[in-house]
């Protein structure tokens, strides 16, 4: 009988242990962290899932195409937003750049947004006379891009009394800077429909 009592106590202790209120959470009854990869269907405007799907599809298609042999230097341009809504297209480019970088298939030249800081830093090092000669990065050694990556996103929106349909088309192309030839191109289509 003492064994039975002991077992009962052990089981209860186990159960209680699982529910102990020693959680590392402070406040926030209505707040929670969600899955960043979840399919987001809050409204049918451009959303996180669209951004993730576009970046994923484009990067993988480009990486696997075989065009990027020997890790060429690529310059990324902003994606043109031809839709009727505001989209931070810089984030699409950043995601594509990050994922290509992680896949190890390309290197990236300073693009239009960070070129100014790069030039400023080079000028500061070489012209100010502030730095020790042996540590100064020399001018004239920046690597030029072999390819440029350019894209655009456009949308078709249709509304009736009970349906709103949005169709997005994202296209991306890789252009050889020297020849001006488009060497690779792909597009991703997304349809989102809301029925009232």
């Amino acid at each position: 009988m003492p064994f039975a009592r002991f077992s009962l106590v052990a089981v209860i202790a186990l159960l209680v242990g699982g529910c102990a209120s020693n959680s590392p959470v402070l406040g926030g009854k209505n707040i929670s962290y969600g899955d960043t990869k979840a399919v987001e269907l809050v409204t049918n405007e451009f959303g996180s899932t669209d951004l993730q799907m576009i970046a994923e599809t484009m990067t993988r298609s480009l990486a696997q195409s075989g065009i990027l042999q020997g890790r060429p230097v690529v310059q990324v341009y902003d994606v043109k937003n031809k839709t009727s809504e505001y989209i931070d297209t810089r984030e699409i480019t950043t995601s594509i750049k990050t994922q290509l970088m992680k896949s190890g298939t390309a290197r990236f030249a300073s693009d239009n947004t960070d070129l100014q800081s790069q030039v400023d830093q080079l000028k500061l090092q070489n012209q100010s006379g502030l730095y020790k000669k042996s540590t100064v990065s020399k001018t004239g050694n920046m690597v030029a891009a072999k390819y440029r990556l350019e894209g655009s996103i456009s949308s078709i929106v249709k509304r009736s009394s009970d349906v709103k349909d949005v169709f997005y088309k994202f296209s991306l192309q890789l252009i050889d800077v020297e020849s001006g030839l488009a060497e690779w191109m792909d597009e991703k289509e997304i349809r989102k429909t809301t029925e009232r």
Partner: protein
Amino acid sequence: MRIKILSLMALALLVGCATTPAPAPGSAASKVASLGSLKHTEIGPMRVARENGFLTVKAALSNTSSSNQTLYYRFAWLGNDGFPVADEESWKSLTLYGAQTSYLTAIAPVPKATDFRIEVKTP
């Protein structure tokens, strides 16, 4: 009494770990991790190839019912050791019309990926 209690405890432990028999390793079924039941969905043949250094997968997914079905899926890319080699993918939504077979295609994000799992969830 002691034996009874012991056997009850053992049973409780076992119930928590009970699973159906595992599919044969290397088979198409072993590549699918379903979150919940996959009623009216059948996972057909898969084609795996390495193209330009990246693992490429094509998998057939059939709707066995006559009504349309929406499901969510994503691929997980694994290395030689069976652990993921890349960040988690975003979930994708797929609509299958009644009795339709659709082919999912996916490309691994990194050349290191040597194996994969398809996570499927019906709403």
